[in-house]
């Protein structure tokens, strides 16, 4: 299998997953902002920080108000993690691998781009943001399902899965990072707000119901964070995603370096007791995990996308 094809499939999956996750995030963030009282220390600008777009946003926008941040995340083509940019890049990658990807999946991605373009162009997109974003999530799920159900689970598909799960783990850690925000409030008030914030965090990852079923306890910061990091069965929990990647790597040739990079993250996540590090060292820990995830990507890239002559 050609490296170029593997690389495009990997990025196609990442961008589809990024589109879905960004849509989930925006929907949840909009709700959170409605729920939290003003002046507690969460603002629209954190939404931008979450996506890793802080500097880019600061350079091109004057104020981090709702309108600008929403525009930045939805329709700003220059922001590579905006919905429109992610969908366009997913489309470009699937278009150039059309011979490999089942045609229904190609059509699904193509229709998603047309849908997003059409809705962003109409004025009503802001009023019906919830509906719009929910439909994006559904369509992305449709594409992912189509790939899982109609593509041979060969090496090509393993790269799709690696891309999807790496992107998913990455987004889960970003959303977890919101929980490290220091809430400005009195002690009694803070506890109430924190509960609300972490309930939101679970919601942003569609994890609330599964949390209830698995943990059966009141939502508190360290327990919820532990669930989103350590649970091996919940699909959007970090360790679960890493386990998926491990299964993919096993079936690929020359996987030593990537397996080693994966092992490093797995160990770090598994061996960390969230109660111990929360809240003081939580942010720093999330940072480290994100760097480690980047290490998996680098290793995948070096091994399979840019093979070089030995010696």
């Amino acid at each position, binding site marked *: *299998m*050609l490296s*170029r094809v593997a690389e495009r499939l990997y990025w196609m999956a990442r961008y589809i997953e990024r589109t879905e996750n960004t849509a989930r995030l925006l929907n949840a963030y909009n709700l959170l902002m409605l729920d939290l009282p003003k002046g507690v220390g969460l603002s629209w600008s954190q939404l931008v920080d979450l996506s890793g777009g802080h500097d880019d946003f600061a350079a091109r926008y004057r104020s981090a108000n709702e309108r600008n941040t929403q525009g930045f995340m939805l329709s700003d083509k220059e922001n590579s993690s905006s919905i429109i940019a992610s969908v366009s890049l997913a489309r470009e990658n699937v*278009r*150039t691998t059309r011979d490999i990807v089942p045609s229904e999946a190609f059509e699904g991605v193509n229709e998603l781009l047309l849908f997003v373009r059409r809705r962003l162009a109409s004025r009503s997109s802001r009023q019906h943001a919830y509906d719009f974003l929910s439909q994006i999530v559904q369509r992305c799920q449709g594409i992912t399902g189509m790939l899982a159900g109609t593509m041979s689970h060969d090496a090509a598909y393993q790269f799709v899965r690696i891309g999807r799960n790496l992107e998913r783990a990455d987004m889960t850690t970003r959303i977890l990072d919101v929980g490290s925000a220091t809430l400005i409030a009195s002690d009694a008030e803070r506890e109430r707000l924190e509960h609300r914030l972490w309930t939101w965090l679970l919601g942003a990852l569609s994890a609330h119901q599964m949390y209830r079923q698995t943990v059966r306890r009141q939502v508190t910061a360290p327990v919820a964070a532990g669930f989103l990091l350590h649970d091996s069965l919940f699909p959007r929990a970090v360790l679960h995603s890493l386990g998926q990647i491990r299964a993919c790597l096993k079936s690929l*040739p020359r996987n030593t370096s990537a397996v080693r990079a994966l092992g490093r993250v797995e160990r770090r996540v598994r061996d960390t007791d969230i109660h111990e590090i929360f809240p003081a060292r939580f942010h720093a820990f999330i940072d480290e995990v994100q760097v480690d995830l980047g290490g998996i990507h680098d290793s995948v890239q070096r091994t399979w*996308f840019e*093979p070089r*002559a030995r010696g």
Partner: protein
Amino acid sequence: MRIDWKQYDPGDFYDEVISSPGQPRAAARGLANYLKSLSDQQLARRQRAADLAIEEMGVTFTVYSEGENIDRAWPFDIIPRVIAIKEWQQIEAGLKQRITALNLFIEDIYNAKRIIKDKIFPEAMLAGSKNYLPQCEGVSPRFGVWAHICGSDLVRDRDGTVYVLEDNLRVPSGVSYMIENRSVAKRVFPELFRRQTILPVDDYPAALFDMLAALSPRPLDYPEIVVLTPGIYNSAYFEHAYLAQQMGAELVEGSDLVVCNDDCVYMRTIDGLQRVDVIYRRVNDEFIDPEAFREDSVLGCPGLLRAWRAGNVALANAPGCGVADDKVVYTYVPDFIRYYLDEEPILANVPSYRCEDAGARDYVLANLKDLVVKPANESGGYGMLVGPQSTAKEREKFAGLIQRRPRNYIAQPTLALSTAPTVVGRHLEPRHLDLRPFILSAQDVYVTAGGLTRVALRKGSLVVNSSQGGGSKDTWVLDGGGRR
């Protein structure tokens, strides 16, 4: 209303199906009678079924417009063009003779240059040839063959003579459409295939694979063969993907390939670097190797020419073989056949005037209105003057061009391309067409049975290019001439 062949009027053009009003040609009798049995409605229904099949099969060609690439369905006319096997055998022999002489010429011109020393071909021609590549001098590819895949354009004039209009030796395209046309035609007219013996065309991918495999520098049972495409934006991308798939070869882009210090070509795969033996390249010479040719090319792979010269990889077609795909060199092909093979040409060249010869030039300048003027090195109809359709201003411009660079131009009389019945709405009308057979050469020469018939869908038009309103037809070489 059913078709009445007496009402079908090709004027004074040669028609491929009827010889005179109401009188079908022998080879086309089966087809003509069959079409007569169809009502207008049935005819239109079959055309619609064919259009649908093409769409379903995803047969497309890419048109670049308004900044976006559009995949258009391939326009296909259901009425086949029929050729009697006896006539075809003659054409096939002519094509084989021609490609053999062309390959001998290319091998000679990059090595001993005997034909120049013997004063058959003027050396000055090389200096003016854009497609002569000094980088290829001294190389002798396997079997002495340079043009492994050739697509020659044939046209039939008013009196029925078949002429070779040009030999496409660089990266000729269209063969995938020939194969797809046949599979659609079989769905549309199964009765006719049952009743008559029509030579098959779908063995082409296998023949192509065998030819390419024979070029491998390593004696392997399964040499690594790849198809090199400029990518998805190329108008023939469908064909590149199609042929790669049919041959079970990898479809690669320039960036997938790398030439290492051992002067061998490798492709980047998830298993690491993998040696490549044969490259069927659909990228033009000037773009295949930025190290040897255009530095700004991102479509090729640096070092490719080096690897080819070292004999570590086979390129089909070989770089530099475009030297024989030049309108002026074309005029010498009958001489090549006589010189290298000591035979008389079986297929005729279109009578041509070399503007370089003073006498011919004066004639051309005096008769621009009746001639077609072609530049030496362009393809796809670019930079041409079609005399009868030109304005005085255009003729004046070309007169200037010819006088300034006579080596660059040839002129030919305008040919009256033959016609064949074509579905227009719900009935049949004559439309002009040409024929592109494909010729494969390695140790043997293979010619497709028929080829790709292109048809100008606009009334009276002679332009058959798909990007300019051209369509295509299935081509039937009929064994038995319709007697069964």
